[in-house]
């Protein structure tokens, strides 16, 4: 394919995603900025839960109440998923071992969608109730948390919103978007059925899963081949459209923040995200693919899909990772180290704001001002929370990595470790910690150690940062704000460049030796 055509396709993809994200940012902002009475469509969503939950649905929550509500709801869904999977034999399906059930439940509730199972392991009921349903819960939780985070930054208040309301509204928004995009997927040839099959391949409610899988940056496929399967991703058009779906929400959250805190600010954060995403996609394309990509899609489409998927924390793949060049794998790893270019819906934005805090802190010192963000002083507590968020990620990747080798589990699974084996293990835990979900190992890792280890990493990788970020939101919500000019302006190309530079520098400094030891040495 001529390079001009490729460039045009990328430009079109981003132009369309950014325009749609701009439009979508309005309803998201109106959720973040919701005050009674609020828009009519929100009232319509609220009608039922308000009747059921009463005042619990509308009272303002402190950051810790908000976190507890989020953990409680996610915990209930986790338990339900686990129970449904364990009960599968009673409903006529195959038995799911408890460690695998734990892994699946953790994987989907944390927006990771790491799959240590083959699709045929699950019944249609499980695919719908456990997988597709949880695929709404996870991004709706992430989006809700980011709404609370935006509020904490944008307005002074003792509370940061109500989680149940944020969650319900976010889920409703996702449901509307997913329904519309599922119909389009069906039109492009993705099946939606409750039974039947083509030869040995079972059909099922694929389109409904597919739409929320991409839209919610989930990533878990109906089939083991994920988006390499023609039933999930039939054509070049669907490939393009699915890439668009993955970008849509992650790009609209910073713009929604822009509607609350000044569009210049939102655009600057979006700019840094896009700069990072562009860099990583470019790197992946430069590296290219190896043998094993779907001939239907070709190397370019596959690489574009995969790198967009990694950049958005989705983890869906249009090919096996083994078909990717070492440079492309490095780019995917970098995307997961950063988690914020643009990252998954909600979470990516919050990770970027943590980098914003760190950047502002150092830049503030460089201009001789005690650091502040949007007129609020950055206190030692804020720095502590931001730095802890930054620290958690490498710890969650590196400690289990060492443990896997020390326990002999990596060697047991993969044989004597060389650069490729090291990369596979590094990738597994990075994907789990970043709640991405793509994996070299897949069903190969269906063993008690790997199931439990990755489940723990996924849960910690999801909820520890969310707890820290909600604490940050609470800290900012309580702050006095000044309306004087910012010492370091958080809008404009200069800040976008500094932000991206800081994020890249910190991620590279942390993970450089492992990139060298792994993909760089794979040859």
């Amino acid at each position, binding site marked *: 394919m001529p390079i001009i055509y490729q460039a045009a396709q990328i430009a079109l993809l981003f132009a369309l995603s950014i325009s749609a994200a701009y439009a979508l940012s309005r309803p998201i902002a109106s959720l973040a900025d919701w005050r009674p009475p609020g828009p009519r469509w929100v009232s319509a969503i609220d009608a039922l839960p308000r009747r059921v939950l009463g005042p619990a649905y509308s009272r303002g929550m402190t950051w810790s109440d908000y976190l507890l509500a989020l953990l409680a709801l996610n915990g209930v869904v986790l338990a339900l998923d686990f129970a449904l999977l364990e009960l599968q034999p009673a409903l006529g399906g195959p038995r799911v071992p408890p460690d695998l059930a734990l892994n699946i439940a953790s994987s989907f509730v944390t927006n990771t969608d790491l799959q240590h199972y083959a699709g045929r392991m699950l019944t249609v009921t499980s695919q719908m109730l456990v997988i597709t349903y949880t695929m709404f819960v996870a991004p709706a939780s992430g989006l809700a948390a980011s709404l609370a985070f935006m509020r904490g930054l944008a307005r002074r208040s003792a509370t940061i919103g109500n989680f149940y309301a944020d969650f319900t509204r976010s889920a409703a928004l996702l449901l509307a978007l997913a329904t519309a995009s599922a119909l389009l997927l069906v039109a492009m040839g993705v099946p939606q059925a409750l039974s039947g099959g083509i030869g040995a391949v079972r059909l099922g409610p694929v389109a409904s899963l597919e739409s929320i899988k991409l839209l919610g940056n989930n990533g878990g496929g109906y089939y083991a081949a994920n988006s390499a399967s023609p039933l999930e991703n039939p054509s070049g058009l669907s490939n393009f459209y699915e890439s668009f779906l993955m970008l849509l929400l992650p790009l609209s959250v910073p713009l929604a923040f822009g509607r609350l805190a000044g569009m210049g600010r939102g655009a600057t954060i979006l700019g840094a995200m896009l700069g990072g995403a562009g860099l990583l996609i470019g790197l992946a394309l430069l590296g290219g693919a190896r043998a094993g990509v779907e001939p239907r899609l070709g190397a370019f489409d596959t690489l574009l899909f995969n790198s967009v998927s990694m950049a958005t924390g989705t983890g869906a793949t249009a090919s096996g990772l083994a078909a990717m060049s070492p440079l492309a794998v490095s780019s995917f790893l970098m995307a997961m180290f950063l988690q914020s270019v643009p990252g998954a819906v909600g979470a990516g934005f919050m990770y970027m704001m943590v980098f914003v805090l*760190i950047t502002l*802190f*150092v*830049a*503030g*010192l*460089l*201009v*001789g*001002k*005690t*650091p502040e963000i949007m*007129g609020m*002083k*950055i*206190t*030692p507590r*804020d*720095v*502590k929370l931001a*730095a*802890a968020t*930054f*620290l958690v990620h*490498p710890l969650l990747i*590196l*400690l289990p*990595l*060492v443990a896997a*080798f*020390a326990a002999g589990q990596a*060697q047991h699974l993969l044989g*004597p*470790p*060389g*650069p490729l084996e*090291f990369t596979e293990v590094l990738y597994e835990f990075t994907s789990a910690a970043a709640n991405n979900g793509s994996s070299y190992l897949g069903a190969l890792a269906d063993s008690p150690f790997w199931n439990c280890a990755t489940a723990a990493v996924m849960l910690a990788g999801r909820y520890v940062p969310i707890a820290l970020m909600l604490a940050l939101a609470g800290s900012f919500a309580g702050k006095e*704000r*000044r*309306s*004087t000019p910012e*010492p*370091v*302006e958080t809008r404009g190309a*200069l800040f976008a460049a*500094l932000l991206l530079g800081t994020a890249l*520098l910190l991620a*590279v*400094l*942390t*993970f*450089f*030796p*492992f990139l*060298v*030891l792994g993909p*760089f*040495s*794979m*040859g």
Partner: protein
Amino acid sequence: MAAGARLRWGQVIAESARRLSPLYLAANNPIMFVVEAGAVLLIALLAIPGAVAPGRAPLYAALAAILVVTAWFSTLSESISELQARARVDALRGLEREIIAHRISEGGGVADVRSSELRPGDRVRLSPGDFIPRDGFVVEGTALVDESMLTGESEPALRSRDDRVLGGTRVVSGSLVVEVTAEAGKGFVDRMIELVSSAKRPRTQSEVSLSLLLLVLSLVFLAVVGSLYFALYFMGYGPDVAMSVSLLVALMPTTIGGLLPAIGIAGVSRLAREGVIAKSGRAIEASGDTDVVILDKTGTVTEGNRRAVGFVPFGGYTEADVGMAAFIASIGDATKEGRSIVELAESMGYVPPSPLMEEALVARRIDFSAETRYSGVEFMWSRRPYGPRGVGRYSGPGEAIANELMELRERGEPARVIKGSVDVVLRMARPPDPRSAERAIEEVSSRGETPLLLAVNDRVVGMVVLKDRLKPGVREGLRELSEMGIRTLMITGDNPLTARAIAEEAGIWSVIARARPEDKLRAVEEQQSLGHVVGVVGDGTNDAPALARADVGLAMNSGTAAAKDAANMIDLESDPSNIIKVVKLGKQLLTTRGAITAFSIANDIAKYFTLLPMMLAPVDPAAAALNVMRLHSPTTAVLATMIFNAVIIPALIPLALRGTGFRPTSTRRMLVRNVLIFGLGGAALPFLAIKALDILITFLISAR
């Protein structure tokens, strides 16, 4: 003064060695504690037989030595800055106004004590010329007390039994016994010495934040290097402990970690060199954040000595007439203003003719008082005739006034020549042509000059134009402030016209004219409610609330105890325009921290490229490609990197102590400049320096 403070190197070395104690480092500098722990680990391995591969022992020993030296460089920088600061601050002791008070003892005798030793209830005896040591009340005696340093009122006030008197004011005549009521504040210098001792020093918020960030970064690198060691081990790459410890120390932000205590202390110390005492580290940092500075006009922007610069006639009079009237009105006036009028008239030759001069010299003087607010002379015509036909008509410059006065004498009518401010004089006299006089007055005011009207009996004949000069250097200082984006507010009792003219001349952003003393506090609060960080200068007791309320309150040492207690900084040189220096210093302190942090982190890029390929190359051929600098061998590479890592600390001590070169400019320009210099520069420098060291070490090893 303080610049003469010398550093005793013996003391510095001993102090820095003492601080190498692991206990001290663990509590004060965790990064250097890890460095030291690394050295201990290497030495322990050397001590265990067989733990170190044969032939590698010299490298282990060398690296352990370099690590100890790295930690020592850090404690050295801390000790240098601390002892230097202490010497400087100590040198300030003489300047802190400590006066000798004559305390009346129980038995009635008088003992001389230092004012800081006075307790409430003590009685002190005061004679003319004595400063009142502390606030109190008069128990006995009556005296005129000069309170101009507090109130700006030039007339001494009469104080007698039960009147309150204020510390810092001076007895002009008479004598008093005063009972002290105010508690002695802890000496300011003592407080500042606490600020420069690094163990006791309370850390500021941004310093705590930065330490936290550096600590987390170190933890990240600890996890990275630890995991790398095990990963290499499990992959069968046989990792080396010395290499891993070196990589960890190289990656940790040792440069900023080592210099952080020194930078904080140096801020206090540099203030001390400017003759400013800071009562808290927070105050120094807040001064860097200041974006509104409220200045008094008199004494800060202008010198406060108004001088006559011209005479303006009204109606049919000439300049000479007005000059002569001004001379007469000021003839016995000992104030600087009055003398400047006489001098100006003399220099222009507007001296009254001799008979009139003789009358003027014996005329009754009307002194300035706060109630009347004018001064001048009232002629007491002598009976002695001036010759057979009188003196006749005088002709020459000023003849109209001279002849008018002589005619009044002939007729024996009373004659008064007075000068005073516009509103006062206009209440007693009228100009011949009110409309044009008004225009002239306005014109003078709008130039920032002060008109002083002259009246002969009930007729205003003209005015003296007084001008206050800007203090030297104030315009440049104010321009720097505005370049840094700091707004200046001038507060003055002058009319808005005059105030605005002076503001324009000096480069002041805005004025608060016709201000009363309490307006200063209002201005501070108003600016703070708009979200500004406010700096204010003051010396009087009525400035104290504003000084206390402001984020940065700089009190003059010549001011009252109340003002000095309320402020968070004291300027021993009593130069109010020093606030400009204070703001610059505060910014510099933070910039230095930021610059060395950025530098320290940017350094890491190069260190990966020097150490990592060397650690991996023997087992991982692909990694050898990362040896982009073509370093000679693992041994030379690790030595070069670690020597660079150690030496950069003392190399940056001067920067830490002096602060980054600070040019007042917009924050955006400053950000770009510092990112380029310390970020990109910090990324590039180690590549060059380590390569150079590698060549040198290779040469030294091969020469052996």
